[in-house]
């Protein structure tokens, strides 16, 4: 099911508060359980709330030369202002996941696969917009098959233990599976 190969790169391009950094941290920990090398570069606008916030995660079985790059095989976009740039950053044949409860625009490229997931809206309806990044994480895992969700769940459990994130554990796990479900059903819909 999952790929154990040369590895993968993923970018989460959002705004402060969307959970780009937690997405990156968690995925990096999960990657480290499967790959010889993992790297995570966070990048966010200074001294402000709600500024551009980005994570780049790299998984590899060989030493990682550059831990950041313009392109990645998968991009998760939740920032309206950075959406056009995010679309350009998907490598040909790659995957773009868009939170269309935040971003109204549609992707123009035909050489990539695009999934529109209203993660923020669903999370708010569940009562906690903070878990939207976990819906997107589930969607990412299902769309790319880069890591099995069990590894991410294990990582989430061990890294939440004893932290303020622990009380969100079951909500976060539900969100992961909601993301998986959205993509699994998505393929049956016309794009």
């Amino acid at each position, binding site marked *: 099911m999952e790929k154990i190969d040369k590895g993968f790169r993923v970018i989460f391009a959002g705004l402060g508060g969307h959970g780009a950094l937690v997405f990156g941290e968690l995925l990096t920990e999960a990657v480290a359980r499967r790959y010889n090398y993992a790297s995570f*570069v*966070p990048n966010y606008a200074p001294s402000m709330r709600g500024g551009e916030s980005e994570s780049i995660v790299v998984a590899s079985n060989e030493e990682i030369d*550059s831990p950041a790059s313009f392109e990645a095989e998968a991009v998760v976009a939740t920032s309206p202002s950075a959406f056009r740039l995010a679309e350009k950053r998907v490598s040909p044949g790659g995957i773009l996941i868009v939170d269309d409860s935040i971003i109204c625009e549609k992707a123009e490229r035909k050489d990539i696969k695009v999934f529109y997931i209203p993660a923020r809206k669903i999370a708010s309806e569940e009562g906690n917009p903070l878990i939207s990044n976990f819906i997107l994480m589930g969607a990412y895992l299902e769309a790319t098959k880069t890591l099995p969700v069990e590894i991410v769940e294990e990582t989430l459990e061990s890294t939440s233990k004893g932290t303020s994130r622990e009380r969100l554990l079951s909500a976060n796990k539900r969100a992961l599976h909601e993301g998986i479900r959205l993509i699994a059903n998505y393929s049956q819909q016309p794009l």
Partner: protein
Amino acid sequence: MTERILHTGNDTVARAAISAGCKHYFAYPITPQSEIAHYMARELPKIGGCFLQSEGEYAAAYMLLGAALSGERVMTSTSSPGLALMQEPLSMMVTAEIPAVVVETQRLGPGTGTGGQQGQTDYRFVTRGVYGGLHYPVLAPYSVSEIFEFVQLAFHIADKYRILTMVLTDFVLGRMTEYLELKTFDFGPLPEKDWALKGKAHKGGRSNFLFTVTGMMLDITGFFQGQQEKSKRIIDSETRWETYKTEDADFLIVSYGYSARMSKGAVNTARAQGIKAGLFRPITLWPFPREALQQEALKAGKVLVVEDSPGELVEDVELAVQGRVPVHFLGIQARHIARAEGLILPERILQEVRELL
């Protein structure tokens, strides 16, 4: 097998210092390196040491000076504007030959900077030494593993030559996470610290006098002669650099810190496209590996300097190459977005290489 852990660059600075025997750390928090202080505040009391947060950087550096006089391994860390505030005590420490380690995590821009964003705009500031005409060694890691090694090496160089030694990182290196191998290092023997002020109450204690601490430099020419001889010893023994795929390269990229990491990816992609690119990376920014760079540059015939600044490292490269091969420059204008959170990414470096072929 050596234990491997995921670690951020900033946490690694603190961990490496403790591994090197540093128990006392004086600092004032500043983005993007306050995590070093967080780590020290948590870990130093467990080993009988202390993190003392001062009222500002100026005081932190004077605390560093005072503690270093005892001969203990001590450290401070800061970011660009903080380092500016530390200049007086740091100059005194270099003058009086008081060893300590300073870690500088560059943040972009002049003045108070961008509030802690990435950039490599302190190269010139740290490589020209302190005011008063004296240099100090500067080590530039480009990975979390190298931060772990170079902070420990910095303590060794500091003790070996009785000199302030700096480790220069940046926002990307400080904040990024990657695997760290918890190796142990043996850098060789060190001289006894017979100069240290232990206090007369101490068993076998005696009076000791470090004349330049007072600023009374009576024999000026003798003082500078001694300092010049010491600089020469450091240049001869401690100049460090790394080459990557330069053996058959006909295009040489020169870069340090995070932009060297981006350049490494560009070299590999260039190679996959049949372009024989290589990377030369100065590891000591002072002393700068001039001769080694000149040799590599002459061999390749074409040089591109990549640094996230308006152009600082490029000056040292031009000095080294002495006009014998063309030196091109890719700087802060090459960021993928024209804002504080922009980065110089491998694809942009490769594009420049292709245009210059």
